[in-house]
């Protein structure tokens, strides 16, 4: 049964990756690649001071987006599972429906909210709290993080809701009967049991946000550009496919490293073995 799916995965994931792995060690021509094999592209990708700056931006934006999304998503998913009652299906529908809105429309919505003449600045000035627009609200890392949290939060909620779903209410009620207050229930029961789904959600958001190259162009300004933009520029503008492929593989290696570290941390704390039954 799983053979066709495995074959599709092999075709759609492995073949492109292998192609780009090969490109990354070939010599760059003008919008072309040729022999001989070389590691020069990796040297250029790793040695570029611009890439260091952009990688730092990507890391900061990725971690910040993932942490904030998790902090917001966890209570919402908990509420959906244990407290929403008859609202559960409707709110889940709203969460899914929010993903139907165009990515670019949502980015532009934040432009109108965060801009110099946007909703927030006008409100602050109208209330007499500021005399001129708060310039840091837009075209900054913060603006990129805000927009990415908005875009990616529904995914986090769904992943965490799936994690909460098999959790029996009886366990939390038992803990309460035994004297555990809300904080203790979260610390001793919920968070250990939700560690694996939370790490999954974190990595999902981290990879998507750190690798994004559209949002930084619209909201990042000169301080919020990220490494994905550089990969795009290498392929599309400079026609240097090997450098773009090498930079992409450096990013992929970074992501795999994060994935490995997260799994290692789960195993070290034995949280990967926590089960309901």
């Amino acid at each position, binding site marked *: 049964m799983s053979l066709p799916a495995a074959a599709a995965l092999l075709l759609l994931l492995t073949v492109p990756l292998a192609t780009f792995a090969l490109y990354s060690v070939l010599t760059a021509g003008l919008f072309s690649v040729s022999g001989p094999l070389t590691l020069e592209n990796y040297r250029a990708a790793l040695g570029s001071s611009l890439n260091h700056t952009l990688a730092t931006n990507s890391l900061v934006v990725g971690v910040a987006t993932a942490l904030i999304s998790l902090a917001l998503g966890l209570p919402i998913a908990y509420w959906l599972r244990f407290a929403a009652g008859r609202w559960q299906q409707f709110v889940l529908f709203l969460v899914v429906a929010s993903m139907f809105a165009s990515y670019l429309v949502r980015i532009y919505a934040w432009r109108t909210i965060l801009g110099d003449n946007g909703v927030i600045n006008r409100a602050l000035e109208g209330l007499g709290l500021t005399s001129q627009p708060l*310039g840091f609200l837009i075209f900054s890392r913060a603006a990129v993080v805000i927009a990415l949290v908005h875009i990616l939060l529904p995914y986090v909620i769904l992943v965490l809701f799936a994690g909460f779903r098999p959790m029996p209410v009886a366990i939390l009620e038992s803990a309460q009967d035994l004297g555990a207050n809300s904080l203790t229930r979260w610390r001793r029961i919920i968070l250990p049991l939700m560690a694996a789904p939370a790490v999954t959600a974190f990595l999902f958001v981290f990879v998507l946000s750190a690798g994004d190259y559209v949002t930084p162009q619209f909201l990042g300004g*000169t301080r919020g550009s990220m490494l994905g933009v550089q990969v795009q520029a290498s392929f599309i503008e400079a026609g240097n496919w090997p450098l773009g492929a090498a930079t992409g593989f450096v990013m992929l290696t970074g992501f795999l490293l994060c994935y490995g570290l997260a799994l290692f941390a789960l195993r070290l704390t034995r949280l990967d073995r926590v089960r309901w039954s």
Partner: protein
Amino acid sequence: MDDWDNTDLFSGSTQAEREDLTRRQLLERGGLALAFLGAGPFLAACGGKKSAAPTVTSNGTPKAPNASGQIAFISWQGYDAPKAMASWKKAHHVTLKATYMGNHDEIQTKILAARGSHSFDLITYAQAYKPLYKELNILTPIDENKIPNLKNLIPFFASDYKNFWVDADGTRTGVPLNWGYVALAYDSDAIKQPQTYRDLLDPSLKGKIGMPDDLIGVAQLGAHVLGIDITKMSKADFGEVKDFLRKMIAQTKGVSPTYGDLASRFAAGDVVAAFCGWPPIDQLAAGAGKKTIKTYLPKDGGVGYCDSMAIPTHARNTDTVHAWINATLEPKLAAQIDDSLGTATPVKPAIPLLTKDLQAAYPWNSLDGFFKKAPLYALAPFKSDKYVTWSDVVAAWQQLKAGG
């Protein structure tokens, strides 16, 4: 302000009449064409039979071939002229399968990705890309005998100027579709008209300057303002250009990813002037309620461009493509196309048919002089031991955009 004189072309209409009459029309047409996304011509039926119609009449004059079938097209949105060409397509049973690009470099990337098989039948290219496309060998010759309307071109665009459209050996590879310039744009409601680009570096304008992520336009304009030809730029020259652009970017809060985005920033009041403005953004901003944006050539000039239609290698149904190109040179259709885009037409008999605003916006009578103030440049060379290469320019632009 621009000081070109077009009076002999527009005798009988006053400037006031032109402005009153046409701003709304231009706004409606230009704005709509650029604003709507994805009304994609997924009309495509298949097939495309090749016509073997003669291309020269019995008296020796060129004749457009018969058209039918499908054309696979890639270019900017609106360059497929969905409204203007609708009747022609219907009459000839032609469908246009359009791919809209977000970046000019998608053209060569996609053609090369096809690895020698069919990709597109019709493309457009900016004149700056001609040396690259020649080097990559991705253009096929255009048969002038199949395009009788070439006679309608303004002589400047019919010429072999810098071999942008016609090679030195006389082979035609491109047919001009529209032209224009990038220069300085400002909001007359917010500031006095700047005299030079350096006025934009005034500390009082910090954070209020816009700039599009148009590498070619910005790089060419940055060099031009400093009196440097980007195609013959030494490392020392390049250092000056980078310093100048670094200062200009420091005046912005970030580079706009598209010209549409720049227009949005103008409309929102986030920027009051732009380095590398483009006349159609005036109309886009007006469409969003900001009618005081004006793109113009300051004392230090600007940079011109000309987008041309071309046939890539391994194109199919080339007779229909020739017929399409020929149709776009019909005066009425050419005027409709440029009205919808807000660009200038290379078709001489189309000029009086343009909206009055568009007629007044370009120096039709003195193109040679205009292109001295706003030259048509190629890209920096791709290989050179003497001059800065295009790869160097791309790398520097990424660095500058990231605040480096």
